[in-house]
Each structure stands twice: as C-alpha cells, then as structure tokens.
C-alpha cells in the first residue's frame, strides 16, 4: 500500500514535506473489466482534498488527471439523479453525496455496488432494478387518468399527500437493494426499491390499483422475503425509508391496513 499511516509523534516530519500544505488522501479504486478479466484489482491514487471535496469529485480528479480509463457513472453531482451509487469504505453510498471529510479516513476504498452485475470498474448494470420497477405498475391506475379540455385536478389535501410523498423521494439509486441481506442471495427478490414504489402508488388517494399490486407483491419472491432488516432505510440517501413502506404494504396483506 502506498500510504503509510504516520504515527502522531512524526507529524512534524510530514508538515515539512513540500506538498503537505494541501491534504491528500489515497483512493483505492476497484478495477475490473469482465470481458477481459474477471479479477478485481485495486489501484491506488493520491488525490488532493479540501473540506468540501466529495468522493465523486476526487474520482473525477483521478479520471481527468491520473487515469482516463476509470469507468464511473455520474450526472447531476447534487444527489438528485441517482447515478453514482457505489461501495465506499464498505458501505453503499452516493459518491456525490459523500464528502471525503465525513469518512474520517486517509484511505478510501471504492468498489462497485453489490448485488448489481458489474459492467466495468464502478459502473454496474441496472436492468433488473428497472424491470422490477416496471412490474410494480408504478403509475396511477384509474380510468380517469387521462384529462380532457375541462378536467380539473383530483382533490388531494396536504394530509393525503403526506401519505406517499416521502416514498416519491426515491431517486432509483439502488443503494437499498445493494444493502439488503435478502438481495445478497435471492436473485428473484423484488427488493426494497420496487416494494417501496408499489406502496407509494398504492397509498396515493388518486390510485385504484391496490388489488393489482398486492397480487404482484404476494409471491414467493415478493414482499415476504423482506425480514425487516432495515438496512435499506439505513443507507437510503433521500429519507425514503423503504423498510417502512414495505411493512405498511404488508399490513394490507395481513389485513391490518385499510
């Protein structure tokens, strides 16, 4: 490993070195390109950081200055598009939403998210998440869902809105699916992202698709494969709380929820 952790007493020695005016950290980035080799190698890069530097920025620093070939997905850089989920120091996080300083570590290990097939390096394949999302019928089911020239809105009070608003914070980043213990072994499990969206539309007072969706989630790799491990909600960057959504949805199936 390139970095040597300097014991406290020797700190002065570091300060005198010319580059030490700026803090640097070491990024250990997992490199793999499956068609060429199925082995993950870690490469280390030293990057300068400031108090606001995010992990995404430091990866892009590497891409722009040290190694152009790093494969990484990103777009909005403000935690609203859901592109940049990856495993940072062992936990799934959004790279653009994680500051280096929060990690309190001089070595930062960056790997692709678990439970998604790797395309290359840090970029993973989302097909399963997207197709499962689609299976949840994530839209308003209601014969009147198309408007004509004199339609007004469905009435929905702020209280009605609060029943599902939180679940529509979901940016489809997949962090929850990558943290869930069932997802770790069950390749057919719907997963917290999809289940939370099934609840989001079911809880909407404009929707009439509850029966359909309950039937979809009530299958052998459906909602019952959630054991309320809560890891999904633990990692969700947007406060969606999929664990809550799933239990509320299950409440319907067990006959508690109305």
């Amino acid at each position, binding site marked *: 490993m390139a970095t040597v952790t300097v014991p406290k007493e020797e700190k002065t020695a570091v300060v005198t070195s010319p580059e030490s005016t700026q803090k640097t950290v070491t990024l250990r980035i997992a490199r793999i*390109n*499956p*068609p060429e080799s199925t082995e993950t190698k870690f490469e280390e890069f030293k990057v300068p950081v400031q*108090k*606001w530097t*995010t992990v995404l920025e430091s990866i892009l620093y590497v*891409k*722009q*200055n040290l190694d*152009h*070939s790093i*494969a*990484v*997905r*990103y*777009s*909005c*850089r*403000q*935690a*609203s*598009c*859901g*592109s940049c989920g990856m495993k940072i120091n062992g936990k799934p996080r959004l790279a653009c*939403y994680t*500051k280096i*300083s929060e990690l309190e570590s001089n070595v930062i290990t960056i790997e692709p998210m678990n439970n998604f097939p790797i*395309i*290359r*390096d840090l*970029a993973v*394949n*989302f097909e399963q998440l*997207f197709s499962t999302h*689609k299976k949840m*019928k*994530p*839209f*308003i089911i209601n014969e*009147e869902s*198309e*408007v004509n*020239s004199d339609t007004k*809105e*469905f*009435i*929905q*009070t*702020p209280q*009605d*809105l609060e029943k*599902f*608003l939180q679940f*529509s914070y*979901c*940016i*489809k980043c997949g962090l929850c699916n990558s943290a869930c213990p069932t997802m770790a072994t069950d390749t057919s499990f719907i997963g917290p992202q999809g289940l939370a969206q099934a609840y989001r539309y079911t809880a*909407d007072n*404009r*929707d009439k698709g509850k029966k359909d969706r309950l039937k979809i989630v009530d299958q052998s790799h459906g909602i019952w494969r959630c054991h309320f491990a809560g890891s999904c909600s633990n990692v969700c960057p947007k406060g969606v709380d999929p664990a809550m959504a799933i239990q509320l949805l299950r409440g319907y199936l067990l006959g508690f929820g109305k």
Partner: protein
Amino acid sequence: MVNSIEKDLLIVGSGLAGLRAAIQAAKVAPHIKIAVISKLQVMRSHSVSAEGGTAAVLYPEDGDTIESHVYDTVKGSDFLGDQDVIEKLVSEMPSEVYQLEHWGMPWSRREDGRIGQRNFGGYSFPRATFAQDKVGFYEMQTLYDTCQKFDNIEFFNEWFVTSIIHDGQRFCGITAIEMSTGTFYTFKSKALIIATGGAGRVYSFSTYALASTPDGLDMAYRAGMALKDMEFVQFHPTGILPSGILITEGARGEGGYLLNNKGERFMKKYAPTKLELASRDVVSRAMITEINEGRGFKHDTGVDCLKLDLRHLGKELIIRKLPAIREISLKFSGVDPADEPIDVRPVCHYMMGGIHTNIDGATEIQGIWAAGEVACNSVHGANRLGANSTAECLVWGKITGEIAAKYVLESTSPPPFPLHLVANEEKRIYDGIFRGTGSVNPYEVRQELTEIMNNKAYVYRNETDLVEGLKLVRELRQKTWKHVDDKAKEYNTNFTNVMELDSMFRVAEVILMGAIWRKESRGAHARTDYPDRDDKNFLAHTLVYYDTKEPIIKTHPVTITKYKPVERKY
C-alpha cells in the same frame, strides 16, 4: 457490417421533453415502435435538477389571466420571443399541469386540496406551480413512471448518439454507440424527435448536470440544421461556490440579502424597488459590476464572489422553508446558512437558443422535430423567465410527440438509406477521435475551453473580449487533444467525453459568433460597447449554419402579434 436496429419513431434524449413526447406518441399511436435513446440512464437526465416551479394559469377565478402570462413572457423575452409561440405555450399549460397531476405528480397542495402555486421572478401573478423545491425531479418521475404503462416505448439506456442521417430532405436514421459494449449501431426510422437538452457545460461555472454538453445541438448543426439565438445564455445570480450548484431564487424570495465586501445591500443602487428580486439578468449584471469595481470577496478557491446572507431569517425558517438550500450548502460547501452567509456568483443556467424550429417544433428537415431546451422555437426570446422552461418541455414534448406519431402513421416508405453517411460518421469518430493521435490531456483542454467561455462571454460582453475568445477557442482546437487513452470498448467514458468536447468546440464558436454579430444589449446579452437595445437593426433571430470553412450567419424575423416592443423596466 454495421449493426442496425429498426424503429418507427426515435426520441433522442430522455429529459422532460423526451419523455413527454414518448408518452404522447404512444397514446396517439399505440402500435408503432418507439425508442427513447439516452446517453444516460433514462431517468437520470438533467431535468431532475429543476427546482422552483412550472408556470401555468390555473386560477382565473383568483385573477390570473392568459394575457397576463403571455405579456409577462413577452416582456421577459425583451420582445424577441415569437408571440404566437408564447400564446401557444400559455394556453396549453393549464391542461398539462392537470395531466401531470392525473398521472401522479405530487404537486404541493393548498389546504382545500387544490394545486399550489408560488411567486416567481418576472411574473405579475403567483403562477409557478410547485412541488416543494423539487419540481423537475417529480415531473421526471411522473413521466418516467407513466411511460411504464406503455409497452411500445422501449428505453435505450446509455446509448450515445453521434449523428443524424438524412438524404438532404428526409430523415433516415441516426448512429449511436451502445456504451456498455462499445458497439456502433445505426437506427433506421421514419421520424426523430431531438430532446437532448441544454448545453450549459460549455461554461466552467454552471448549474447544469455534468452530462449537459452540446452533443445534441452539434449533431443537428452538423446535419445542416440552423442553431438559433445561441448568444443568449442565462446567468442565474446565485450559484454556490465552489460547485456551482443552484441556490434557488426562493432564497431571495424568502428575504435573503446580497452583500458586497462593504457589507452593503448593493441591489439598492441597481433596482431600488425590487432589490434582490429584480429579474435574473438585472441582478447578475449588478453582481458583476460590484465584483469588477472591487467590492467582491475572494472565495478560498481564488474565485470572486459575493455573499448571500440568510442568517436574519433564523434557523427555524430556513429548516422549514429552505431545507434543500440548507442541505446543499451544508453538504457541498460546508456552510450552515443559519450561521454564515453563502458564497455565490452568477452562474450559467440556461440556453435560450437552440435548434431552429417552427411553432410546432418542426426543424428544417422533414421527419425531424426538436423539443425542450435543445430546441429554439423562440418562446423565450432573449431571456427566459423562471418556471417557463419546464413548461416549454412539457408543451412541445406533447406537440412534437403527437405530430411525429401521426407522421409515422401516415408516412410512405422511407427513402433509400444513405449508407455512405454512416461510413463517414464511423470514420469521423473512430479514425478521427478514438484512434486519433495526440498528447494533450483532453480534460485540460475542456477546462481551458470552458474557462475561456466564462471569461469572454459571461454576463457582460464586449467586442474585444468576444473576438479574443473566438481566437482562443480556435487556437485551442488546433491542439492535438483528439485522442482517447482508454482503448477498451466497454463503458468507455473517456471516449464519450472526448466526443462531447469535440461538440463543445463547434457550439462555443456559434455562441461567440452570434454574440459578436449582435451589436446591441437585449435580455441576457449585455454588451458594454452597445448598452442599448436596437430594434431597428437587431429585432431578429440569429441563425447560424454549419460550413466546413466558417459558420454562416443569417437572420430570421420575429413574430409579433399583439405587443409592440416598448422599453423594458422592472
């Protein structure tokens, strides 16, 4: 042999405009094959970042009128907007808002359960329809989710489109690279809707997503379509340092102050009545004047800036009403706005210009439409009002989706496919770029290019700077940066980044040439050497056409229906 895919309707770009178009087309023609192609995963488009609102006249009973929205927009455009187009936008919007609502949009509600609206810069009625401060995000989600209803919409996630193929009159297809495998494809199809969004990343300091590069504009430009009014670039007053992420107008709407290094609320001098809430171009100009006259601050990164002070609003109000602002500044700048003022600076935020289209979004080539920020149907003229752009994306998404779908249903057999153009394109990108030789770091070139734009074609412009900028851009283009270090096929973003850079050069040139040509100050285009609006010579749209030697400039008349140009005062 190049791999080929056949579809009936192609939609390139999956922002608000692209997705709205897809739904409309699928509704009108449930049996045609529709492909939505995007270089990002479909729902990750830049549109998710829109914050403030979408303008629509929803409450005539409370005193709002269509005329008022039309006039506000005409005035906002500094009379360069085409008034028939503006009328169309305004009259179509109310039903768009209701349609989104019926598809599940979580609009914020009034206590009575009806849709909520808020005040926004440049409007004479609070008509910015909002869903907290994440309007674009929710709109994208609603449209993306509604697309899932239709089995004839197919998404091509992470396909980088490189060119548009036509035979001189009619559209034939496109070429694209599937990023996960690196395979080059042609798509043959009857119709195309371009919805590739804005290109704000040609500026180094920008609120845009990192993917908002001008590849779509450039594709159309290279294919012979005109780019219109590209010199009009909107600078939003408050981009936070160092990232450039937007601090919404709402922060000033709630009562935030802008301060210079003397601690003065300098807007008193520039807009005595509206102060910080004057229109965006006015506030941005005031800020740059302050900085130029030495009353700015220096940010830790060495950039000049001013302060946006929210402290007097109190922590509680900030948490309750501006949660996203607090989150952004805490997270990305390490500053709690309740304790410290935020460092801000005018930031590239919107492109009024785009691919030249008519009122229905049709381009100059049969079978090709353009919608959203990439298009210029002249609805925004010289300056866009906040909340009118998401509106534009929805309305022209719908219009182009409908017309293109009908066109597909009625169209005759396609013209013979000009395969030689595909071969040319393959040569251009693989021989010219992928296997190009060079030693200069393309990312440094990109940085340099965007900084030139920031320095020479920013809020204030003048002949010397613009000409100098054009010269620098052209010089930079001569450097040998067109090479791709990464030789792998799979998910090669190094390759796509260099292609994006390639397109930035051409579009930057168009912006600069338009700005040099337009010797007046109008809307967002403020020339210090020509400080006044000149309706005699420049009440016209700029059109720029591609040419192998030097771009060709033409003009296009402005449509005026009701409102003759008058002086614009706020």
